[in-house]
């Protein structure tokens, strides 16, 4: 009998010190029955990729408010790939200008969410991304 659970790493790369949004989404995912590993503030891309490896997560959610997403996201994607984690889905949430989204998606990001996103949307997107039926 297998008892599969979706595991999600919620990380905050960069230097800004606000993790309210990250915590809200972490709790929403927990309440939707997911296992959420929360790593806290000021994570480097190396730290995020290492945690993703050790925790064997299905999904990495990045919360970025600093405006540095065009640098941070490709770096996280690189480090994940270096760790052999090409199959991990990456979601980005935060303040991301519309114009920057296509480049992030080209980089392999699965979805990008702005402020005020319905958390249920994120939950169902994640379930779809990792192919788990309700």
């Amino acid at each position, binding site marked *: 009998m297998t008892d599969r659970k979706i595991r999600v790493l919620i990380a905050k790369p960069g230097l800004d010190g606000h993790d309210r949004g990250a915590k809200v989404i972490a709790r929403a*995912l927990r309440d939707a*029955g997911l296992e959420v590993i*929360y790593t*806290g503030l000021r994570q480097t891309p190396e730290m995020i990729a*290492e945690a993703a*490896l050790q925790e064997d997560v299905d999904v990495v959610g990045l919360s970025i408010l600093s405006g540095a997403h065009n640098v941070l996201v490709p770096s996280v994607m690189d480090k994940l790939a270096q760790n052999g984690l090409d199959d991990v889905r990456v979601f980005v949430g935060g303040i991301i200008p519309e114009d920057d989204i296509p480049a992030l998606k080209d980089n392999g990001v699965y979805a990008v969410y702005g402020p005020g996103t319905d958390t249920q949307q994120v939950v169902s997107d994640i379930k779809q991304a990792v192919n788990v039926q309700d």
Partner: protein
Amino acid sequence: MSKIDPQAIQNGDRLALSRALTVIENDDPQSLEIQADLFPHTGQSHIVGVTGAPGTGKSTLVNQLVKAFRQNKSETKPPKVAVIAVDPTSPFTGGALLGDRIRMADLSGDKGVFIRSMASRGALGGLAHNTAAFATILDAAGFDMIVIETVGAGQAEVDVAQLAHTVVVVEAPGMGDDIQSIKAGILEIADILVVNKADRPGADNTARTLKVMLDMAQNSSNLPAGKHGTSNSDHLFQDIYIKQETWKPPVHTITATEGKGIAGLAADIQAHRAYLQDTGVWQIKEAHRLRRDLDALIRDKLLQQWQQALDQEQFEGVLQDVIERKYSPIEAANLLVHDKTK
């Protein structure tokens, strides 16, 4: 799920290790094979349980402790350390928020450290039912020490005491310092007691209370109530207890956030390992744990077999008879079980 090579785990492939832990955690069919392949290569790791109430500073302490072990200059090669951080699964949603890594950021980037968060899943509040299997895999992967952080609550404490060689119980001041407020049972399971948050008022008081309680326990010649029993495993427990009477649990007062007192605590953890090995208690504990594991597995297997062979209609019929008070539950159980094992 792709095939996992047990040899890769032994060779230090961290991705293979991580994937294997997932396989174990999900009770994936590969789990059996991986454990069978790796089990012969285990028995080397020192398993250290760190338990206590939420918020006492266990994760902060583990961060400092592992850092101290990794920087230990007296050893030619610092020990490789794995951390299993167990947190409860919500019984309502089945989800879990695992936040112990927040306090362990200092350990990031050290290839000699591997941290894995684990939700308790089915096992309410306690260790996950696969925590012991996690320890087996990490042992085979060459970790010299496996630290298991678990929220201390009832059964969880007993579970961790039976899995770990060395149990560190963490308290913090401000939870009241009278004897009633110190939870029953911790003296029985603690090999080392820690009063954390020494920067806060009341830490000395808490430490003093713990020491008094320890002295009282040591001076009474009787085994504590929980240690009496008649089953095989209880005898083994008494065995351990008797041999352990020569180990007096030290009480450490520390400030984990500042790393104060960590060196002394690390030294005592090593001393306890040496003590277990010198007295032969290590082997007794190991035998006791394996017996328990085997007991539990056999129980699961028998139950599963019986459930598979069960005639559901007969079961419902007997249940109805119980509801109508024709059979007592014990008669009904005898009837249903004997029918199948004849």
